[in-house]
């Protein structure tokens, strides 16, 4: 019994990622065709070479037909799955396991989401029929619980924390300004961020990720086959996924300054990849910055910062593009928005570019060869957490 992982048994040999944004002129079919085509060209394979597909989408279609119909896939397995905001990452995890098992030679993980057709602000999701008693608070509201709790626990003044939140948004927009695929490609002055209209609690509009459409895809093969497709494959070092008992909203000792699920998945992932000091060993991390306080707390849960110290690290620029440990170098959910099925694969796409030295103006050159991606879905105290670690080199 145990989580053994599949370190170095699977490699990514091709990826594709559409531009993210308000694609009034593109359907979810269009985005799937674009991302799948880009991924195939990147790996130098035809669509017919793909043996199996995992499609992640939360609300843009059901069943494998959502992918097989637009791509005209000829009688291959297509799984459609959903795991809240980790949906895209979950498609990747399952595709990797399929290849590692030996069941298939080449698999594609693809995710897409069409959010802008709903006509509403923010995310919209239909719950199954229920008794009408769950509090129907918005996502920013449930994550806004983190801010006052963090202040109270670590004695940080509310105004100081707002400064920290503002700097996180500022940093991610600064990175996104360098990324042609981002929804928002413009730096935003700190004063604008700090003064943006409140959405929930102390969270202003600029403390929240955007709403966009997008798609991204990855092609995975067994590690030993990787060099048939590319000179610079990425090896999968760790895949961790955790769902919690949702104890935060029911147990009084949960204090809203941590995600227990992230702590557990980080421990699992680092053990799979043999990482002892993530801040020193990782070249970069793409984390789930759905709201600025989320990114702050994640720095501690992912062990990049000590407990109660992430706010100081943020202000010191530790997680800036040129900092000691760049976080969200592509601009994050802040700059990309959050088309749920696509986000996890979009994060992986940045790891793909960075570790292969193809990130252009955003290129990180700290000499490290490992990258981490992270998603969480749900709310503080009741969530799912995904972590992947990929590397440019196979372990000896």
């Amino acid at each position, binding site marked *: 019994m145990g989580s053994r992982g599949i370190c170095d048994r699977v490699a990514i040999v091709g990826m594709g990622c559409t531009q993210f944004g308000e694609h009034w002129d593109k359907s979810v079919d269009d985005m799937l065709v674009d991302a799948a085509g880009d991924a195939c060209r990147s790996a130098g394979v035809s669509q017919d070479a793909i043996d199996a597909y995992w499609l992640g989408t939360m609300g843009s279609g059901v069943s494998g037909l959502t992918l097989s119909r637009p791509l005209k896939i000829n009688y291959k397995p297509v799984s459609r799955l959903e795991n809240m905001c980790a949906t895209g990452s979950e498609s990747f995890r399952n595709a990797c396991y399929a290849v590692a098992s030996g069941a298939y030679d080449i698999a594609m993980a693809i995710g897409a989401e069409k959010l802008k057709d709903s006509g509403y602000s923010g995310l919209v999701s239909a719950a199954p029929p229920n008794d009408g008693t769950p509090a129907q608070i918005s996502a*920013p509201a449930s994550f806004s619980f983190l801010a006052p709790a963090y202040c109270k626990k670590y004695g940080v003044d509310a105004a100081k924390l707002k400064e920290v939140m503002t700097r996180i948004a500022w940093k991610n927009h600064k990175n996104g300004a360098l990324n042609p695929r981002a929804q928002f490609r413009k730096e935003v002055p700190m004063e604008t961020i700090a003064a943006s209209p409140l959405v929930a609690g102390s969270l202003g509009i600029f403390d929240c990720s955007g709403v966009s459409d997008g798609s991204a895809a990855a092609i995975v093969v067994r590690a030993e086959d990787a060099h048939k497709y590319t000179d610079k494959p990425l090896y999968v070092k760790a895949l961790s996924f955790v769902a919690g008992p949702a104890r935060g909203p029911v147990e009084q000792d949960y204090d*809203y300054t941590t995600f227990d699920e992230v702590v557990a998945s980080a421990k699992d992932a680092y053990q799979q990849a043999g990482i002892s000091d993530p801040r020193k060993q990782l070249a970069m991390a793409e984390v789930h910055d759905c709201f600025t306080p989320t990114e702050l707390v994640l720095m501690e849960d992912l062990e990049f910062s000590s407990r109660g110290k992430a706010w100081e690290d943020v202000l010191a620029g530790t997680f800036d593009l040129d900092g000691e440990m760049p976080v969200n170098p592509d601009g994050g959910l802040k700059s990309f928005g959050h088309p749920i099925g696509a986000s996890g694969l979009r994060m992986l796409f940045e790891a793909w570019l960075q570790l292969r030295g193809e990130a252009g103006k955003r290129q990180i050159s700290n000499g490290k060869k490992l990258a981490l991606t992270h998603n969480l879905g749900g709310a503080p105290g009741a969530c799912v957490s995904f972590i992947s670690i990929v590397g440019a080199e196979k372990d000896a």
Partner: protein
Amino acid sequence: MAGIVAYGSYIPYNRLDRQTIGQALGVAGGRGARAVASYDEDTTSMAAEAALAALATAPDGISPSALYFSTADPAYLDKTNATAIHAALGLGHEAFAVDMVGAVRSGAGALRAGLDSAEPTLVCLSDVRTGLPGGADEAAGGDGAVAFLCAREGPVIAEFLGSSSTSAEFLDRWRLPGESTSRVWEERFGEFVYVPLAQQALQKAMQMFGVNLEHIDHLVATGVHPRALRTVLAGAGVRKEVIANDLSATVGNTGTAHFGLMLADVLDRAEPNQLVTVLLIADGATAMFFRTTDAIAAYHARRTVQEQIATGRPGLSYESFLTWRNMLKREPPRRPDPDRPGSPPSFRSEAWKYGFCGSRCEACGARHLPPARVCVHCHTTDKMKLERLTDVPATIATFTIDRLAYSPSPPMVAAVLDFDGGGRFQCELTDVDPDKLAIGQRVEMTFRRLYSAEGIHNYFWKARPVRSNN
């Protein structure tokens, strides 16, 4: 001895100053304020609050076998509303819960039926009074509820001596089904018809019980025609000091509930062995006679009418009032409307949704809201017992002001509540000033109508700050 053994009153938190109507519409606004049911209240939820207050002070061993609910403004038709009130009391399914709705007069019928009942009966009277903007009904009306637990045994605090009524068919005030406000005939016509009907009912009752006006210690006089009432009282020569405060300056006329609310206000300070007379003018007249007993000296209402008047929040804007009553249609947020609650899931969770029962793990003691089968703490399965938390106070662990979520009156204020004795729950706050919220603040639960969707009212509990004088 049959009579009232306990009662509870409920006056909603918000007050509309009548001057604000005048300022908004450029008309004479009138004096004083009226009580206003909040956007998340209706006649059913307010009746439940009054009923909870009544049962909290009920004598040991007296639990209602029947619940009679009366209002002129029922939340549902063709479906009983009393069942929701009964479910909020957490009394199981062994009762006769029934509505007597449609007209202000129905309230007198409900109380008389309760007092005549052989079994302990809880009578709930509740109303939300509406009127077209600028009209007399809008300004003079008020919202509120009251509940009386009637029994033939136990420590009766007000013995029911009996009643006398008159009835006549005429149009003074009426409303067609589906309409949100009432129509009235010329005032002087109603006075012409009502005055003799009221005099007749009162005189007949006094003859029956061998009393005269001199013996009355408290006269609760109210109804749908204030002018006729004034004429009756002036003509009868009733001593001014026995005429009960009609609450018009502070609450307004709460329609179906009003004679009961005034009676509760009288009982709040009545002394033993006093004669209390109720005179209600509505489609005829009803006179009811009570005599307080020695037991009233030791009886204390959970919250008196005057306490609730004193702790109301003034300053409600006329725009909010109109919006809450559906008289002003406002631009909704760019968010989907809430889903309607499903009928089968609501039925399955009746103990939770209406009775606010959590479950406590019998293995480790962890409390769960909502009830769970598997313990979150020790993972023991199906060793749970239900615990009702309606009267358990809680502390705000953290809170947020949500400007994005759907609410009939944005922004939504939500909090994580830690209950005394264990258990945590996240829910909406109501009757709250967001600027005065703080972690650590004490709150209590209140039964509300969260919203209505696709023709279904979503009843559930919210938390409100514990009032200072509670």
